[in-house]
């Protein structure tokens, strides 16, 4: 350490990297995340990028950003407003400056502010000169120039082109910020060397730039401060960072190992679900068979065919693709075979906002099929939780011989957090319990003779002698499964299918209420709003408000104790990134006058807005200590 430097200890920091789509901001953020995890901080991330592969360079439409919150205590969200903003060009400044905390740190790459940049960003005069940045602690640096100069040798020796040198500026920035927040860069060095193993010169350039940035921080006298964020006191265990899509893929593989069935994953690429396919395709050694189908209908159809054959069958998509799968999911309901259907939700309707997050498919997955076709619905609440949610979806599908909808969203899919590796031995037992022998009198096989406790039907695999049978989408006679147009049978079968799904509630553990039934308000959520809701509730409590919260993993059927819990509160708030879908279900089922907080902005909630909403409600009801106002 140089002598000029003082080191300040912070509890939590929110940092955002922003630049052009081509500037490598996602990669920078990813690496900073890994380095931060290594230091032992708790963290949460929020990548945000345009729907175009590379939207017009230099424009605000082309800005890509990555936000990360890290802390020495456990945290739940990627943070509302950044404390530190790194911008690579004028457009990135324009688009992000409004979010930066007053007094926050702004690191500007001045090389991204020439006239063309300013014009593309829509600036008439340079914001660097007009005083508009006064509220911030601004560091203006020629990052591109500093980077190229640090790589001059490599360029001169023709190891790399000068274009390549300029491209490494994100690594320079990463080095600098790593120094600033005292994060070691060794793993990034190793990672770069592996990633560019086939282009050693490029690897070298990036490593060089990274170290140059780090050293620049250390040697320059520009920065008065260096910060430290101490490790968080996380529960003991082995940790890694993980994104939701990866956790989901791992969860599926774990479930497949656990139940002893090969995983069949039928899918058609779509943002933000494609990465699950990419991840699984790399793990064929676990017996995973990935099938990139011609469309979503074929993907789910193939999965259902594989399920008939005895595979652990999974399909995934985002909203538009789930709509296409609707008819086949209905068939799966009718034939009662295990199937997991993953919906990584994104902004809608229609193509909507493909790279943004939203929770507006709940009613679609509940009701988006013809006829009475009930399907269990499970939702994940954080990136790491996607692992558990996947296993739970598989458990229900296998136990009840039913398609299960598993909901995640764009934020969970791409966001990441530290994740404590699960104790594999403690994962639930999953048993396919295939039918092996005739279940009828006189040795016949009755494919719709149900298990009296679960109402599940037998799953008999082709290849098993004596259990030959036919299934299909026409109504089936109870027990025998033969085609039946009998009116009473149809009513009975409709009731049985419903009762089977309703019965899943029996397995569910009691709901964990965070708070007391005597609190003044209950906040009910589901899915990725978990972090912001918990965070907001913490803050409200810190302000003296009495608020409880409840986060639902199971959206169909609802847990058996939900009704009583809801009815023990006078006021219920349901924040959702949709226009009130869970709220509709709760009101219809329990006749409780739940209120909504509904925003569809393609962004996760900020804890601050939820905090404000809750405090407002409590105040209206005269339930907020005045001191905090």
């Amino acid at each position, binding site marked *: 350490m140089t002598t000029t430097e003082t080191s300040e200890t912070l509890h939590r920091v929110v940092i955002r990297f922003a630049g052009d789509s081509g500037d490598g901001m996602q990669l920078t953020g990813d690496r900073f995340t890994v380095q931060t995890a290594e230091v032992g901080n708790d963290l949460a991330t929020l990548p945000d990028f345009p729907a175009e592969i590379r939207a017009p360079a230099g424009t605000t439409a082309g800005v890509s950003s990555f936000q990360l919150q890290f802390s020495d205590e456990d945290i739940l969200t990627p943070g509302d407003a950044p404390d530190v903003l790194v911008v690579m060009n004028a457009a990135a400044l324009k688009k992000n400056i409004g979010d930066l905390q007053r007094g926050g740190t702004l690191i500007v790459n001045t090389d991204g502010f020439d006239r063309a940049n300013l014009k593309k960003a829509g600036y008439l005069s340079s914001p660097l000169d007009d005083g508009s940045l006064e509220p911030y602690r601004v560091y203006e640096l020629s990052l591109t120039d500093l980077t190229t100069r640090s790589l001059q040798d490599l360029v001169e020796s023709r190891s790399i082109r000068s274009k390549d040198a300029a491209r490494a500026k994100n690594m320079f920035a990463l080095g600098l910020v790593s120094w600033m927040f005292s994060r070691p860069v060794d793993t990034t060095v190793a990672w770069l060397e592996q990633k560019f193993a086939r282009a050693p010169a490029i690897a070298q350039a990036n490593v060089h730039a990274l170290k140059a940035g780090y050293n620049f921080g250390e040697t320059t006298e520009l920065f008065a401060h260096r910060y430290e964020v101490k490790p968080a006191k996380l529960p003991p265990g082995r*940790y890694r*960072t993980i994104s939701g899509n990866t956790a989901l893929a791992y969860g599926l593989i774990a479930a497949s190992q656990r139940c002893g069935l090969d995983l069949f994953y*039928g899918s058609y690429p779509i943002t933000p679900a494609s990465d699950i396919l990419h991840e699984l395709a790399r793990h064929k050694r676990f017996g995973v068979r990935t099938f990139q189908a011609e469309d979503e209908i*074929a993907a789910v159809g193939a999965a259902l065919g594989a399920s008939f054959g005895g595979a652990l069958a999974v399909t995934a998509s985002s909203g538009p693709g789930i709509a296409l799968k609707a008819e086949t999911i209905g068939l799966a309901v009718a034939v009662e075979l295990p199937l997991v259907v993953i919906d990584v939700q994104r902004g809608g309707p229609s193509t909507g906002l493909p790279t943004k997050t939203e929770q507006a498919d709940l009613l679609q997955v509940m009701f988006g099929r013809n006829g009475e076709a009930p399907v269990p619905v499970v939702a994940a609440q954080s990136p790491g939780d996607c692992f558990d949610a996947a296993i739970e979806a598989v458990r229900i599908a296998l136990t009840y011989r039913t398609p299960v909808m598993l909901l995640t969203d764009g934020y969970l899919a791409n966001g990441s957090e530290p994740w404590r590796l699960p104790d594999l031995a403690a994962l639930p037992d999953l048993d396919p319990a295939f039918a092996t022998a005739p279940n009828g009198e006189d040795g016949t096989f009755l494919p719709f003779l149900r298990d009296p406790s679960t109402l599940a039907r037998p799953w008999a695999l082709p*290849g098993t002698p004596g259990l030959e*049978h*036919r299934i*299909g989408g026409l109504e089936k006679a109870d027990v025998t499964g*033969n085609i039946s147009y009998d009116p009473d049978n149809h009513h009975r079968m409709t009731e049985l299918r419903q009762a089977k799904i309703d019965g899943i509630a029996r397995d569910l553990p009691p709901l964990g209420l965070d708070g007391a039934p005597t609190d003044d308000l209950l906040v009910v959520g589901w899915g990725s709003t978990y972090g912001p809701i918990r965070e907001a509730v913490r803050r409200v409590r810190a302000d003296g408000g009495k608020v409880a919260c409840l986060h639902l993993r199971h959206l169909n059927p609802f847990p058996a104790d939900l009704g009583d819990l809801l009815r023990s509160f006078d006021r219920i708030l349901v924040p959702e990134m949709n226009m009130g879908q869970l709220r509709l279900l709760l009101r219809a089922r329990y006749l409780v006058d739940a209120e909504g907080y509904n925003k569809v902005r393609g962004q996760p909630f900020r804890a601050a807005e939820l905090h404000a909403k809750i405090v407002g409600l409590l105040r209206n009801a005269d339930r907020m200590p005045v001191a905090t106002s």
Partner: protein
Amino acid sequence: MTEGRTLTRKDFTSDQEVRWCPGCGDYAILAAIQGLLPELGAVPERTVFVSGIGCAARFPYYMDTYGFHGIHGRAPAIATGLAVSRPDLDVWVVTGDGDALSIGGNHLIHALRRNVGVKILLFNNEIYGLTKGQYSPTSREGQITKSSPMGAIDHPFNPVSLALGAEATFVARTLDNDRDHLQTVLRAAYEHRGSAFVEILQNCIVFNDDAFLSVRDRATGASNRIELRHGEAIVFGAEDDRRAVVTKDGGGVEILPLDEAGGRVVVHDAHVDDPTRAFALSRLTDRDGGPAPFGIFRQVQRPRYEALLVDQVERAGEQGRASLQALLETSNVWDVP
């Protein structure tokens, strides 16, 4: 495969009442297949019939095998998933001209290009039977049906041409009322390693009777059937009216009286890799009430999709036993004490 069991057609016949119209061509196909399977050495428990929706698609219910009556058009997709996850099974798809070529056209052509080991039997009656008589993608221009009271204006598909354009490795045509021919073609389809596409002309007595009169008529049909036999010159017709298929200037083939054919008679080669000649033959049709080719147009080898996939799984597995723990730890990990 029969493991000492002697199976008969009864072993493939389910107890369900057959619900087709009296006189429907589907009956003959059902009987032919129930009779053929034991001969092929197929066993009921390892046989699966998958179908979509339509009259034809009721087929699985009548077979005492495993069966999956799917939804309209999606049988090739369902069958693909089944075949990929269970390459040990014999997977058949039974479909209609609407099911396979209208709503299910995309799944069909993709199954064919992938060469999934599924046998696809298209019962072509040139009509939507189950929904009571609308025109289908194989109905003829001008055909009057419930939905085309002034005549159909859609130019139809030629199923064989379409399959060839979709890179199919096995393509054949046969018909409901020639049991021997049907069984011969289906035997070859069964033995083909990869996807097999078989168009079966099938008479719908209720909504499109006698659509295939020129080639199906008990008395005169045989003389209009151009039999394709691998390695043989393509000659057909009644004793007193022998005709030959000959190459045509500018590509393609045509029909000439045998005595005018000269040296141009085509010798059928189903195994040649280039599908052009098979395509040329497919352009001869009975649309104008004339002769049409029957038999195997094309039969070439290409790796099966599921075999390639299993191979990747196996090769991946050779890298050593898969450990879940190791997988979770692929990324940098740290320990919190």
